[in-house]
C-alpha cells in the first residue's frame, strides 16, 4: 500500500512539473501548445540514451534533456511565434506528430515500439534512488524547484510582459517589448522544464516506449492545466492531484481493465466539457493580479 501511494505521488510530482511548465505558455502567455508530451518524450529519450549509450548518469542526462527540449521547442517557436500565437497551436501539433514518428521509426536509436529498457536509477551523491518512496522526495524536490522557477518568472517584470502579450500583443510592442523574443524565451523555458520531467520519468520507470508520449498525453497535460485553473500558479497542481487520482479510484471499483481505459478517457472528456461550460476558469479560478505583489 505504501509503495502504491508512493507511486501515485511520484507521478503527481512528474505531472505537476509538466502542468506547471505548460501553464507558463497556456495561462501566462496565451500560447496554446499541443507538443508538451513530445517535449516530455524528448526529455525521457535524451536522458535514457545519454545514460545507456554514453554512460552519463541521471544528472548529466537531465541537463542534456533540458537542453535538447529547449532546442526542439526553439526550432518550432522561432518561425511560428514570429507570425502570431495562433500559429503555434498548429506548429506544436506538427512537432508532436514528427517527434512521435521519430521515436517509433528511428529504430537504430530509439528501438522503435519495443522501447528502451534498463535505464539506470538516479544516483544522488552515491545513494541510488530505487525505492518508490525515495523517488517521491526526488520528484517532489524537482516539482518544488519548478514551482519556484515559475513563481519567479511570473511574479516579476518579465511576468508582467507575458501577461501584457497575452492581453494585447500590439500594445506590448508599442510599449517597447520585444514580443517575439519574449515568446521564444518562454517557450524554451517551458520546454526545458517539461523535458526535465521526462528525464525524471525515464529514470523512475527504467523503461520507456513511444506510447507514453503520444498526442493524447499532450491533451491530458493541457487538461490538468485547464481543469486546475490556468490563471493561478497552483491551479495546475490541483488539477494534477485530482486527475491522476481518477484511474486509481477506478481500480477500486471492480471494472475490468479493458473497460477502465476507455471509461477513464470518457471521464476526462466529460470533465473538460463540464468545466468549459460551468467554470471555464478552472477549479482555483481567477486571481485579480499576481505581479502586483512582485518584489
Amino acid at each position, binding site marked *: 500500500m505504501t509503495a502504491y501511494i508512493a507511486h501515485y505521488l511520484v507521478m503527481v510530482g512528474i505531472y505537476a512539473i509538466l502542468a506547471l511548465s505548460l501553464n507558463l505558455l497556456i495561462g501566462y502567455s496565451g500560447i496554446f501548445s499541443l507538443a508538451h508530451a513530445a517535449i516530455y518524450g524528448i526529455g525521457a529519450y535524451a536522458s535514457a540514451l545519454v545514460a545507456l549509450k554514453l554512460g552519463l548518469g541521471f544528472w548529466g542526462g537531465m541537463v542534456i534533456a533540458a537542453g535538447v527540449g529547449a532546442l526542439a521547442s526553439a526550432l518550432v517557436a522561432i518561425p511560428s511565434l514570429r507570425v502570431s500565437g495562433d500559429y503555434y497551436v498548429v506548429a506544436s501539433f506538427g512537432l508532436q506528430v514528427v517527434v512521435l514518428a521519430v521515436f517509433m521509426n528511428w529504430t537504430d536509436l530509439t528501438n522503435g515500439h519495443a522501447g528502451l529498457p534498463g535505464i539506470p536509477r538516479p544516483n544522488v551523491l552515491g545513494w541510488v534512488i530505487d525505492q518508490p518512496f525515495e523517488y517521491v522526495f526526488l520528484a517532489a524536490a524537482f516539482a518544488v524547484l519548478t514551482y519556484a522557477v515559475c513563481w519567479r518568472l511570473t511574479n516579476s*517584470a518579465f511576468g508582467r510582459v507575458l501577461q501584457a502579450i497575452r492581453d494585447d500583443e500590439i500594445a506590448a510592442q508599442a510599449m517597447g517589448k520585444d514580443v517575439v523574443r519574449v515568446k521564444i524565451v518562454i517557450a524554451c523555458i517551458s520546454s526545458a522544464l517539461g523535458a526535465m520531467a521526462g528525464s525524471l520519468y525515464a529514470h523512475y520507470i527504467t523503461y520507456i516506449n513511444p506510447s507514453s508520449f503520444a498526442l493524447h498525453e499532450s491533451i491530458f497535460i493541457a487538461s490538468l492545466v485547464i481543469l486546475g485553473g490556468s490563471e493561478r500558479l497552483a491551479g495546475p497542481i490541483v488539477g494534477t492531484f485530482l486527475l491522476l487520482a481518477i484511474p486509481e479510484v477506478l481500480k477500486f471499483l471492480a471494472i475490468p481493465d479493458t473497460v477502465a481505459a476507455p471509461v477513464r478517457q470518457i471521464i476526462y472528456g466529460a470533465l473538460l466539457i463540464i468545466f468549459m461550460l460551468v467554470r471555464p476558469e478552472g477549479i482555483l479560478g481567477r486571481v485579480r493580479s499576481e505581479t502586483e505583489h512582485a518584489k
Partner: protein
Amino acid sequence: MSMAAESPIMSVKGLARSFGGIQAVNDCSFDVRPGRITGLIGPNGAGKTTVFNVITGFLGADRGSILLRGREILGLSPHQVERLGVVRTFQHLRLWSKMTVLENVLLGCATPAGENVFSLFLRPGAVRAEEARARERAMEVLEFFGLSGRTHEFAEDLAYPEQKLLSMARIFAADAPVMLLDEPASGLDGESLRRIVPLVRKLVEHGKTVLLIEHNMELISELSDDVVFLHQGRVLAAGAPAEITRDPALTEIYFGV
C-alpha cells in the same frame, strides 16, 4: 516657411503607402518641431492613422523616409522605434484590460533587469532595486494624471475618460521624448475635455514633443502650435492653426461640400 525655423526632431519625407489599389499615404512630407504640439488633421480617410502606424513601425512604407533626430527609423520594428524614443496611444486605447492600473503604467516604465530572465535569477538585488524605482515612478505618473486613487483597479473597470488618461499615463511613464496621441479627445464630454487639454499642455512643459491626431477643430486651434493638414494621403498645408482654420478652401475639404 516658418516650420524650417527650428531643426525638427522628426522629419517625414516623401512617405507613400498603398493598400491594394488604394493610396492611403502619398508623397507625404512634414516636420515635427521639438517641444511643441503638432496637430495632424484632415477628413476621414486622409491617411492620418496610417502615418502613425508607419512612424511607429506597425506598417511598412512603399517609399519615403522618417528621420528621428537625423536617424532613419523607417523599417524598424515597433519595439525598436519605442526604444529610440517614440511612444504612441491608440484610437481604441488597447489598455491591458485584465491588468491593474498600476501594472499598465509599470509596463511603461523601464525595467530591463526584471524583464531579462538571466538577471531575474542571477541578480535579484538589482531586480528588486529596479522594481522599487519603477513603482515609485509609476506612482508619480499616476499622480500626475490624477489616477492615484485607482491604482489597484482593473483597467477595464475604469470609466472611459479615465481609461483615456491611463493610455496617456502608460506612455508618459516610458519617458520617451516624442509622444504620438491618436485622438486624445474623441469620445470625451466637456468636463473630461477640460481635464485632458491642460494635461497635453503639461506634457510639453515636461519637455515632450507631441504629435496628435484630432477631429475637434476647436481643440486643435486651442492646443496645437503647428498644424499639418492631410488630404488623400498628401500634405495640403502646414502652418499655424489660425492660418489653416481660416483657409476657406481647407475648411471646405474638411467639412465636405
